[in-house]
């Protein structure tokens, strides 16, 4: 009887040698005349164990990791196909505390299934949300989403149900569903892992959105740095069309929805929604002033939903199990789960899906196990390059939108970048300005000019020229950028700079 072995196809696993491991297992099995079926799954998100090889046994899936191609012969010798003992044996994968303690709603299938197999998707509750949505009125679909308390996971945390209702109520012949998959923030990779590990989930979420608001065309705006996600999405879209889950008559319901992937071209600003729309229209990704909101006048001037990957991928389970089910998770006004991405200088980095309310400290130490270098953790940047740097004294902050805004920080997309005590926070403040200067679309002056002046002033601070004066100057500049920029790039670049000055002042006076 054939033994099923899982070797991830997620690009994080591939970046650590998963392709070579899969090939070595196939070769070794042939040599030993053992019958194995290798399934290329997504990642479980435990990147520190990648490549994580799993063997499907009656007692569950037994994991071995991190495996290199050179370990493969030894694994066969240790009878890993029967779950044999080996230094790399991590036991039943779903009982590893890092994994077992999570609340996996959006990521329920990621790492479990073959991402591009529609059959596998259907066998794991796939498309149940859409099937239920088709039987509901558009107003009832939107009510489920509103009741769930889902807020935009891209960072702005705007209530998804309200956005959908605005588009649904806007009269137009053509409406669009656009997915913002321009995941450019450092420290974030949840969108990528979902698109590579369960692309049907995103497609289903977009299809439900289309049915709810009466849109017939969708685009996934994907960053070009994600070729693996591109291939997975295209394969899944093709399979969905073949089985009538996309196209002119979705599963015989009379509903129509067409979907295509569009590639970005390395512009960070295109993660801002109006800039993304400009880019989708084939233009420079320059910000549009708002109003009008994209929900009223979006892509090609038509009512358009712009949602992040995580927001849309949370919709299938909300429709399948109901808004009340989803709302049960979380705290305060932050309902449901957050897909926390733990990266940078951390021992056990990866993706952790938890209900809102878990503290930073639990994530950093209970899950992450402290820094990778073994040195004390000095700072954590939360929410991408525009997020604040938090010092140890703030590590007890719960991960929820309001708690973060109370300490002048952003939860954003849930990305955490960890730094040990060798970090120079004045350099990080300079880098924030440099990044803004590089990525500014140029539309508004505070961002375009302010960021360049910011780099220059930080250079003087670092060089020790008239330091107090220049620190005051950079604080004033931050104030101008914060209040005078058209969008979040210029408007939030001050967050990392100000927080670095506020919490790590000693680095500005060395």
């Amino acid at each position, binding site marked *: 009887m054939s033994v099923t072995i899982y070797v991830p196809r997620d690009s994080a696993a591939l970046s650590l040698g998963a392709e070579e491991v899969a090939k070595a297992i196939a070769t070794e099995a042939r040599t030993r005349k053992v019958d194995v079926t290798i399934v290329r799954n997504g990642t479980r998100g435990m990147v520190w164990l990648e490549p994580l090889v799993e063997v499907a046994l009656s007692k569950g899936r037994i994991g071995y990791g991190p495996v290199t191609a050179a370990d493969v012969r030894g694994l066969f010798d240790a009878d890993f196909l029967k779950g044999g003992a080996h230094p790399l044996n991590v036991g039943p994968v779903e009982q590893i505390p890092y994994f077992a303690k999570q609340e996996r709603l959006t990521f329920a299938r990621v790492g479990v299934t073959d991402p591009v197999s529609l059959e596998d998707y259907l066998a794991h509750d796939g498309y149940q949300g859409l099937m239920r949505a088709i039987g509901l009125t558009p107003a009832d679909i939107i009510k489920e989403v509103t009741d769930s308390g889902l807020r935009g996971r891209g960072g702005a945390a705007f209530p998804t149900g309200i956005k959908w209702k605005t588009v649904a109520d806007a009269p137009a012949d053509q409406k669009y569903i656009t997915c913002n998959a321009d995941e450019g923030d450092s420290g974030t990779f949840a969108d990528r892992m979902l698109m590579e590990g369960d692309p049907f989930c995103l497609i289903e979420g977009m299809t439900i959105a289309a049915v709810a608001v009466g849109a017939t065309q969708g685009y996934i705006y994907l960053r070009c740095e994600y070729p693996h996600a591109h291939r997975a999405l295209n394969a899944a879209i093709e399979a969905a069309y073949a089985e009538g889950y996309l196209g002119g008559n979705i599963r015989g319901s009379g509903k129509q929805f067409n979907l295509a992937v569009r590639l970005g071209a390395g512009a960070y600003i295109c993660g801002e929604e109006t800039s993304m729309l400009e880019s989708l229209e084939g233009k420079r990704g320059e910000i549009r002033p708002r109003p009008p909101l994209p929900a009223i006048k979006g892509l090609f001037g038509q009512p358009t939903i712009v949602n992040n990957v995580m927001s849309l991928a949370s919709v299938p389970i909300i429709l399948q199990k109901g808004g009340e089910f989803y709302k049960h998770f979380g705290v305060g006004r932050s309902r449901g789960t957050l897909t926390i991405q733990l990266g940078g200088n951390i021992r056990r980095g990866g993706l952790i899906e938890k209900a809102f309310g878990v503290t930073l400290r639990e994530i950093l130490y209970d899950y992450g196990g402290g820094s990778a270098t073994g040195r004390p953790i000095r700072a954590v940047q939360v929410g991408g390059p525009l997020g604040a740097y938090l010092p140890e004294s703030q590590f007890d902050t719960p991960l929820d939108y309001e708690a973060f805004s109370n300490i002048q920080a952003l939860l954003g997309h849930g990305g955490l970048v960890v730094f040990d005590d060798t970090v120079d926070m004045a350099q990080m403040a300079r880098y924030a300005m440099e990044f803004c200067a590089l990525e500014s*679309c140029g539309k508004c002056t505070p961002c375009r000019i302010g960021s360049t002046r910011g780099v220059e002033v930080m250079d003087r601070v670092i060089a020790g020229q008239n330091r107090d004066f220049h620190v005051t100057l950079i604080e004033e500049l931050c104030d101008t950028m914060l209040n005078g920029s058209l969008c979040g790039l210029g408007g939030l670049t001050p967050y990392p700079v100000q927080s670095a000055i506020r919490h790590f002042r000693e680095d500005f006076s060395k």
Partner: protein
Amino acid sequence: MSPLDSETQQIVAAVVDRLKDEPGALLPILHDVQNALGYIPPAAVPVIAEGLNLSRADVHGVISFYHYFRDTRPGRHTIHLCRAEACQSMNQKATEVHAKHTLGVDYHGTTANGAFTFEPVYCLGNCAASPAMMIDEELYGRVTPERFDAILADWGKR
């Protein structure tokens, strides 16, 4: 600006012809031209502009706006080294210095033998395995200077 040879002219015209009726066709066209040629030759701009009924300035403006599009021929392979915060926290700087020294070029440069073009990138989404690097479409994690050498040696054999 050197004129396109007839083969290149045909490639560009075919891409434009195939995609020009798509809504928002310019980015898909630019991607396909760059995929086919490795870059977007300046002489391709008028062909694209005419096909889409845009001005040459419009097309040039879009090409120059996006970091990914290039108007010069790259090396046989392109190395993208991530410069973002997560990679910096894992001493990306050491890899960067080492890579520049080994390749003998700065960012945006192409090695003397034409094998590699070296580009910075801001996040490859591999932040739990920093520092990250991509060569063409292959992603690498935990790229220390030593691992950089091993990876490069491997590509040298291809």
